[in-house]
């Protein structure tokens, strides 16, 4: 009988300890591959495979300087141009279309929304085939215009779906008040509604930027050497007989930094965006 009250805190303490151990484990499993990439990128070839890994040895910068002098920065710049233009275009277009859809009262609306979501399930490998044939014909292979157009549509469905959800939360009275003040429908959209969905715009922009930045397959098929983003350079480090892990990971580290920084900074907007606005 006497043992009962004292056992509880012990059990709670134990369960808390298990919780902390699990937390540390989850964090390690999540970040070790990224740290490993950085470690190998800063290690000379002879020691890539020495185990256990010496996490604190002096850095070797040869792989990074080799990658930087090989024109890798040009492909990073391409990634940047393509991702920024795509993000701006998608956010703008999906805000306009998302608002119109949120205010639409028609039985076609549901169908349209499901069509829009359905485009998301189309695998890139299937659409790349006709797009490649088409791009070859109109000479848009390996141009910014060609790849950006594909990326805009590839992300637009998701953007519209998300912005539609955010505009549904804008109260009708606020927009009515704008109309009373003499604004046109477009005036209400630009000056009233858009300002109320800034978190939604940030969430959409973040996701579109990251998805575009990380995309590989369309770029692999539709670009060559002028408009190619950084992802297309990665397979090049895998030779027929050996892989230049140091250079490949140096390039990878530079390539993954922007989305990692961007993602960690705006993470609180991400949850809502990822679920298509289903949770707050």
């Amino acid at each position, binding site marked *: 009988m006497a043992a009962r009250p004292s056992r509880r805190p012990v059990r709670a303490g134990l369960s808390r300890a298990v919780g902390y151990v699990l937390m540390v484990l989850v964090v390690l499993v999540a970040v070790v591959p990224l740290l490993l990439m950085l470690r190998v990128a800063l290690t000379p070839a002879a020691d890539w495979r020495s185990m256990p890994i010496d996490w604190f040895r002096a850095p070797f910068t040869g792989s990074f300087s080799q990658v930087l002098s090989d024109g890798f920065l040009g492909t990073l710049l391409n990634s940047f141009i393509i991702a920024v233009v795509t993000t701006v275009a998608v956010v703008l277009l999906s805000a306009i279309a998302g608002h119109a859809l949120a205010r639409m009262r028609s039985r076609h609306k549901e169908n349209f929304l499901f069509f829009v979501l359905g485009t998301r399930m189309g695998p890139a490998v299937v659409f790349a085939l006709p797009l490649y044939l088409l791009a070859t014909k109109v000479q848009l292979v390996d141009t910014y215009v060609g790849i950006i157009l594909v990326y805009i549509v590839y992300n637009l469905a998701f953007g519209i779906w998300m912005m539609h959800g955010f505009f549904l939360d804008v109260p009708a009275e606020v927009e009515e008040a704008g109309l009373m003040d003499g604004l046109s429908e477009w005036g209400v959209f630009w000056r009233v509604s858009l300002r109320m969905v800034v978190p939604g715009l940030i969430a959409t922009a973040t996701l579109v930027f990251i998805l575009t930045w990380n995309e590989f397959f369309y770029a692999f098929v539709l670009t060559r050497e002028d408009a190619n983003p950084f992802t297309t350079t990665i*397979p090049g480090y895998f030779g027929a007989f050996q892989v230049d892990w140091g250079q490949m990971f140096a390039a990878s580290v530079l390539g993954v930094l922007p989305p990692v920084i961007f*993602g960690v900074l705006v993470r609180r907007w991400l949850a809502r965006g990822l679920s298509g606005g289903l949770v707050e």
Partner: protein
Amino acid sequence: MRTSKRYTTVALLPAMLLFAVVLVFPTGYVINLMFQRYSLTDVTGNRYVGVDNFARLAGEDRFWTAALNSIVFSGVSMAVSIPIGIGIALLIRRRLRGTSVLRALLIVPMVLAPLVVGAVFRFMFESGGFIDWLLGFVGLDVTPFLANPTTALVTVAVVDAWQWVPFVAIVTAAAMETLPREVLEAARLDGVNARQELWHFTLPMIRPLLALVALIRFMDSFREFDKIFIMTNGGPGTSSETLPIYLYRYAFQYYEMGYAAAVGFTMLVLISVISTVIVRWMRASQGVAQ
């Protein structure tokens, strides 16, 4: 605000035009292409062949292997990522000290380019590499995961799961935060233990969201190309060749566009059927949740 027809039309026009050019047109093109023998290397024999491409596809063992591999890949990726993701969401819900650090670092796997994820895990799974060392450290046997035909596909699927566990965890944790605390606390006061609370209260209440998570995880894993391409390229043999890899080979290595279009169309049909089942489940469960 009631919007005019004109506003709606003008606002939707740009998006509709883009969809038409870069989506509806290609779909039509694929449908037209799949009834042709259309080779880019040997153009002299190109002509309409009816449903020959589908007959050929049905008779190819390699196609059926790829279809089965795709289903196994998606199944393993979902079966690993969803339960672990829910587990981590429960860990986040406990609000132990340091949870904000956990949430911040949890973002890392899913913002990495899938291709880079594949590359780094290929390095880790190399013989004598990090995973071998880790398994040896805890006293487990070592097997060449990516070089062994029986383990290659499942290994890549687990890596795919690794990347998307955070997605499941973050979205589920956010959904759990919106649940009415009073209901859960009242249940606990009535003597419901933690496991019962999870099975009979928390999970049923977020079931619509879990269905959406399952749908997104299915669609994303079924079309995964990058990781398989960089880790095994479908090998050894065709043991990890999924439909996207199979399609890529026929379209962009053998240049048999007509046959590849037939494969692509079949893939779309498969995805629609499985997605419809998941959406049905989602809709049926909405009544339960409310």
